[in-house]
């Protein structure tokens, strides 16, 4: 009888804990430091680069849904707001890092071909002087496991860089292009959050 009562208490405790668990929303600014060239343009946007936004729902760092946005809000006056929802397979490869202050950062961000195209195309369009003139029809490599250096953020540095990756591809009209892309992440300050 006593064992049964203990089991019941454990069950109730689990249920109440589940009820208190809150899904949180995480936003990270991702600078897109890129260069691009084809026969019509040769440019680089390394400083300061374009920008996309990594947004996620998570339970204590366990990712549920992830989206990339090209703007941080859906302003009715901005008609070019774009977002792409990651598939569960794409979400599964993402690893987060929690710094000593409890903030979450990207540690590993594997990008499939469609995500590489999206991040490079929309990230480049934040700054018109180095925008991709056309949508990339193909790009190689088709899968890029971006990894971020998070040692610095543990020491208080406010940005974290990935490696630089070089791409080659074909534009939508069939013309070839070359590009490079390195990602730099920063925390998105919001509400009462501090550094």
């Amino acid at each position, binding site marked *: 009888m006593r064992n049964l009562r203990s089991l019941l208490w454990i069950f109730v405790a689990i249920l109440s804990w589940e009820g208190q668990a*809150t*899904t*949180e*929303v995480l*936003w990270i600014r991702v600078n897109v430091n890129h260069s691009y060239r084809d026969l019509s343009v040769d440019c680089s946007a390394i400083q300061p680069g374009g920008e996309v*936004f990594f*947004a*996620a*729902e998570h339970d204590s760092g366990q990712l*549920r*849904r*992830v*989206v990339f*946005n090209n703007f*941080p*809000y*859906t*302003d*009715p*006056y901005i008609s070019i707001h774009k*977002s792409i929802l990651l598939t569960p397979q794409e979400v599964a490869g993402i690893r987060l890092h929690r710094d000593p202050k409890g903030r979450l950062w990207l540690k590993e961000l594997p990008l499939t071909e469609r995500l590489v195209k999206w991040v490079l195309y929309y990230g480049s369009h934040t700054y018109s002087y180095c925008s991709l003139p056309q949508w990339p029809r193909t790009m190689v490599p088709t899968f890029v496991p971006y990894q971020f250096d998070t040692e610095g953020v543990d020491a208080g540095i406010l940005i974290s860089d990935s490696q630089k990756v070089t791409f080659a591809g074909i534009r939508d009209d069939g013309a070839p292009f070359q590009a490079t892309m390195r990602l730099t992440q920063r925390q*998105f300050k*919001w*509400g*009462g959050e501090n550094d």
Partner: protein
Amino acid sequence: MTNASRKPWKKWRQLSAMAFVLFTGAFSANAAEILWLKLTPTFAYKDISTICSTGLAPTTLYFGAELENLQVNRAVLKDNNVDVITDKIFFLPEELSGIELYRDGMGRVWLKTLPLTARLLNWFLFNAGAGIPECKPSQPLLTVGPIPFSYSFAVEGLGEGGVSAESTFGKLFGNRKDGGAYQAELSLRASQYRAE
């Protein structure tokens, strides 16, 4: 006309005057007082499609109430226009019971405690970011929490000429209608409002 014939009329006038004084006195003691407070929210909202805060462009909302002896008979929240018919929400009778008011040394009435039900919190979440057109939930909200939720205002010291009272800081969360998660932060600064 003799004095005797004038007396009843005189008495009637005296009685009428006394009755008038008593009546108006009693009426003024029970007269409903109208209170309008400006509520300036500090608001931030985020889900996976929108992240925004009103730090740079505060909105002004209004709390209006009919009072008797610091008891609220009716109350309403209005958006950024008091003098025209705009978006407003009346408190239900059961939503009035927890409201506490405070009269300062200068006779001004302030909110001391403002308990908010889910539907009133929902109203705040959709109107607190009106100063920035895009700073509001991207979809209708299915849940708003934590419930019960109550704002307390720092009204101590207002008798010494204070012009505003800050509320506690509310961290809110829940799910949008599509099931997606959201988080919001809302605090309120109350100040006296009187139409010019």
